[in-house]
């Protein structure tokens, strides 16, 4: 089975569509089979995720360059971040990834009601993450840690670079979460309209890939922003 679609993806013509595929309205005419269509969608999404790696990678490179230049500002900056809230948010995102993967599994099995429940749970965790993030941002404003004219003048300028990167990295990540919530809403509506079946659940799978990717970005952001100076003590 696996070999057959590899040939198809490599441009081979060895694949004969399964008989029932001819009747599947979800099969686009330019694909040989539902299987090949699924593989192509997955590959396309991974290519997009690679561009996302490079997009976040640019900011991580800036982080790397400035951290090597001002290591003490990175330690001091991380002391200003709320480790318990950051840790809770990491857990919240892991929970959302679990409910997401369960939603995909339910879609594979055609368990519509449970799939809707898991999608909704994923969205609740996503909103909880953004809520905690908003609280953290408000804290930073109160503590004069937002780069610009109102930044705490007692702190060195290099400290502003840390917080500029903190807001850029977590802000772009939060923007991805908001987009993810939009995607989840779309998947929810499509599910309610009975667009999916065990033969066709590609959008659920692809939405899951996006959601998990955003989770992976946070898995790196948490230790790299919050925990740098944790052992030194505030």
């Amino acid at each position, binding site marked *: 089975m696996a070999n057959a679609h590899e040939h198809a993806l490599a441009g081979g013509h060895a694949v004969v569509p399964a008989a029932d595929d001819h009747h599947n309205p979800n099969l686009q005419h330019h694909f040989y*089979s539902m299987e090949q269509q699924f593989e192509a969608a997955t590959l396309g999404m991974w290519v997009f995720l*690679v561009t996302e*790696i490079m997009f976040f990678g640019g900011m991580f490179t800036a982080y*790397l*360059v400035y951290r090597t230049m001002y290591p003490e500002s990175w330690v001091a900056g991380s002391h200003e971040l709320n480790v318990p809230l950051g840790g809770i948010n990491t857990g919240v995102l*892991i929970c959302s990834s679990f409910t997401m993967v369960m939603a995909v599994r339910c879609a594979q*099995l055609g368990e519509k009601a449970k799939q809707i429940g898991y999608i909704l749970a994923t969205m609740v965790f996503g909103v909880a993450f953004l809520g905690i993030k908003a609280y953290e941002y408000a804290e930073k404003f109160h503590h004069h840690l937002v780069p610009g004219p109102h930044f705490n003048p007692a702190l060195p300028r290099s400290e502003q670079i840390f917080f500029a990167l903190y807001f850029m990295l977590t802000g772009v990540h939060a923007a991805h979460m908001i987009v993810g919530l939009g995607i989840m809403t779309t998947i929810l509506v499509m599910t309610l309209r009975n667009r999916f079946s065990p033969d066709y659940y590609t959008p659920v799978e692809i939405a899951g890939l996006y959601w*998990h990717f955003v989770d992976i970005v946070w*898995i790196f952001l948490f230790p790299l922003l919050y925990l740098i100076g944790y052992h*030194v003590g505030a």
Partner: protein
Amino acid sequence: MSSAHPITPVRVYLAVFVALLVGTALTVFAASIDMGAMNTPVALGIAVAKASIVAIYFMGLRYTTPLTKVVAVAGLFWLFIMFGLSMSDYLTRSWMGVPGR
């Protein structure tokens, strides 16, 4: 049957879920110990392990075609080119001892 992914048992997903939570607790614990220069490598090691099991199990990378796996690894490859070439510049600027570096 056209689903390319076999159905994964719930216990596999649960095991990954628990491993990710344990990994998070481990990151916080490891960060609380002073390991000198090793703190960041240890934190990154745990993060890479967590990200890997998310990609392999939750994102189903293990069921994808070899081409998709190559694309995923290529992403990391290009990322390391960006890190490597950038740092080969910034880390070696002081070697010349020229003002204005």
